[in-house]
């Protein structure tokens, strides 16, 4: 899959279509051209599409959702112009419907299992953990294999083993935490004698210590985990002969994590301290309690409204500006301030209109995020030819992705 980075001639492994292959020249000889990304969608039009989709989804008790999703993606793609030519979506609703049913069944049985017994809950959790990287990869394969531009399909070539390796830094501490909790607390009987009570309290203390260590480990490893996941994703995209790669040292992700921590999480921590100071004051005076409650709620909302978009903007810039392929160099210049203000506005209006503003919010967010990305191209697009035969997936894995039809995230 890495022919494109290592080979001198990026066209070497394409399936020859005689005239194009003969005419192909080295891209390095051409000047650099900027491909602009523009988004032309309209909130009011998407509102009409959305409300009819919602109605049909409600009438069918959710069974219409995959069909609604195809229409939504097609609308957003038809309005995403890269160098003046829109993206196209080729996913078929019925395969996506199969994947949707499977995912719902999986999530439903997981939710039910944890209510039923701790053992069943743990087993369901481990099963979900075991399947998730494969499902996640299948989802990316499906989405990219069904996304086209200028008549050529994109693709995702990350392999299954690497998908599991990418999730390892998330999984190890999380699974340790889950297993520790199960063995320490899972089978506790209600304590009826003082000895049992003492045993129970000792187990609680041990559990607290293990949870604390695992929690810190998860927090400390989070930037590394993010780096692994993003590297796996951005090393796997391909289009025509181009294969992307992400050259970012892990420390850049730690830098991002630290900044988010200082700007986003520290205020939350300070609010907690403030709450600890303020709440005892309110104890004797019930009349100021509602004010304290509202102040804490606002601080909580602020945390989500600021740290979330801040993180998303910084991550988009970091990752896309580090992504390139032999003839393409991406960059993203999304101003975090703009995304934070837009998110605040979206939340406020969505809440005030009882969610009717949601389609407008989706369009505005897509516009801001897409239009801040650009691509520098070296070479002549007209000479690019497809990697694989069209209409067929190039690996068995892609066929699996097609069968499941998973599609997660926007």
């Amino acid at each position, binding site marked *: 899959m890495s022919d494109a980075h290592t080979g001198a001639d990026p066209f070497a492994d394409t399936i020859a279509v005689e005239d*194009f292959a003969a005419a192909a020249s080295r891209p390095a000889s051409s000047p650099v051209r900027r491909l602009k990304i523009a988004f*032309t*969608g*309209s909130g009011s*039009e998407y509102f*009409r*599409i959305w*409300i*009819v989709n*919602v*109605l049909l*989804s*409600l*009438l069918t008790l*959710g069974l219409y*959702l995959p069909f609604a999703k195809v*229409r939504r993606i*097609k*609308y957003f793609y*038809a*309005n995403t112009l890269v160098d*003046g*030519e*829109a993206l*196209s979506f*080729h996913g078929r609703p019925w395969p996506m419907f199969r994947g949707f049913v499977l995912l719902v069944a999986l999530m439903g049985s997981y939710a039910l299992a944890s*209510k*039923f*017994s701790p053992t069943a809950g743990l087993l369901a959790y481990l099963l979900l953990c075991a399947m998730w990287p494969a499902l996640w990869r299948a989802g990316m394969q499906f989405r990219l294999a069904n996304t086209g531009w*200028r*008549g*050529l399909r994109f693709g995702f070539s990350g392999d299954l083993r690497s998908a599991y390796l990418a999730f390892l830094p998330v999984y190890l501490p999380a699974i340790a935490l889950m297993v520790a909790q199960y063995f320490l*607390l899972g089978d*506790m*009987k209600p304590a*009826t004698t003082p000895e049992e*009570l003492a045993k129970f309290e000792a187990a609680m203390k041990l559990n607290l210590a293990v949870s604390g260590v695992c929690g810190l480990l998860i927090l400390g490893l989070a930037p590394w985990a993010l780096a692994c996941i993003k590297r796996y994703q951005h090393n796997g995209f391909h289009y*025509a002969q181009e294969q992307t790669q992400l050259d970012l040292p892990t420390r850049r992700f730690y830098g991002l994590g630290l900044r988010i921590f200082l700007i986003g999480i520290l205020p939350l921590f300070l609010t907690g301290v403030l709450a600890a100071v303020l709440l005892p004051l309110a*104890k004797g*005076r*019930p*009349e100021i*309690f*509602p004010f304290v409650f509202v102040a804490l709620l606002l601080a909580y*909302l602020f945390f989500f409204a600021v740290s979330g978009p801040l993180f998303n903007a910084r991550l988009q810039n970091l990752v896309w500006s580090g992504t390139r392929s032999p003839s393409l160099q991406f960059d993203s210049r999304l101003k975090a301030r703009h995304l934070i203000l837009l998110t605040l506005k979206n*939340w406020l209006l*969505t809440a005030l209109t009882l*969610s*009717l503003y*949601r389609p407008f919010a*989706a369009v505005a967010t897509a516009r801001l995020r897409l239009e801040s990305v650009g691509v520098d191209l070296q070479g002549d*697009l*007209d*000479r*690019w*030819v*497809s990697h694989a035969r*069209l*209409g067929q997936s190039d690996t068995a894995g892609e066929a699996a992705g097609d069968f499941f039809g998973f599609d997660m*995230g926007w």
Partner: protein
Amino acid sequence: MDRASSAATARLQAHFFDGRSARPQRVQAWVSAGRLHLQSEEDQSLRHFELQEVQWPERQRHGQRQAELPGGGLLSHHDGKTWDAWAQASGLRDSLTVRWMQSWPYAALALLLCLGLVTGLWAWGVPWAADRAVALMPGAVEQQIGAQALSWFDEKMLKPSQLPQAQQNAIAERFAQALNKAQARSAAQGRGARPWPAYRLHFRAAGEAMGPNAFALPGGDIVMTDALVQLLDQDSPQALVGILAHELGHVQHQHGMRMVLQAGMVGTLAGLVVGDFSALIAGVPAVMAQAAYSRDFERESDAVARQLMLDADIKPNVMLDFFDRIEALRKKKGGSDNSLPIAFASHPADAERKRFFGAP
């Protein structure tokens, strides 16, 4: 063919991608005799496609139009209006869904229907579906979930009861006698002697936060806190029977299980509408639903309790003493009566419940 003859002249200049090269070819497109024809402007070569095999784009005001052709080709046009005019002249029709989506009056109608549907699902659909689901659910599942919940409470919030065993037995006995009496009365009056559901009464010591309290779990476990017994057992022993009857009402109507199902369904419903936009916003309807449905359940259980007390020759107004004591306790602790709006309160207002039990 009528369509073919009238559309023969409608031609569109568009871009064709063959699916192998990223290079666009300028083509003339037209529809005739049930087929789409493309003629290259470069080498005049012709391509033909059956209309049914083409994936046509939906009409919309914004964005480009792309038709997916069999064999991996793509017909693309940058100007939607020109394409739509050509498609219409060529006899291609919009689907019903697209016509709805492109009309403001129909979109407004869809909005009204959505509101009606959500209201209907909330008021009737969700409770009805929960009823059916609870009826289908095996008793063992419910018991298992209840046992699970009880051991959770025992771990996190409850301690073994400090009450003498004799006092616990006396309360259980008093309640059992009231049940027998009520059952006999109800049978004698020909109101159908539906047997009371199986229940297990547990006494537990609880912390300050829970205070005097009683609650029922799915499967028939009823928990009563020591503080509640201490509050009432000396002065209004029959009020304890009333409270237990209320909890038995929850057990009888399987409120615990129904709450789990109904809150889950409302959460799913909210997810359908609000979706991935924000888990926080999607959570609000679920919380409100929990409170609103919970109030309905409390009213239903109050009705069970009142009837049971009447049948067991206990005056329902002994419950007034309980409400007064709880109110006094709340005032003493310094909490205001109704600091949160009614939409978030899980029980009906005390005044309403007092009227219900105080009525002769």
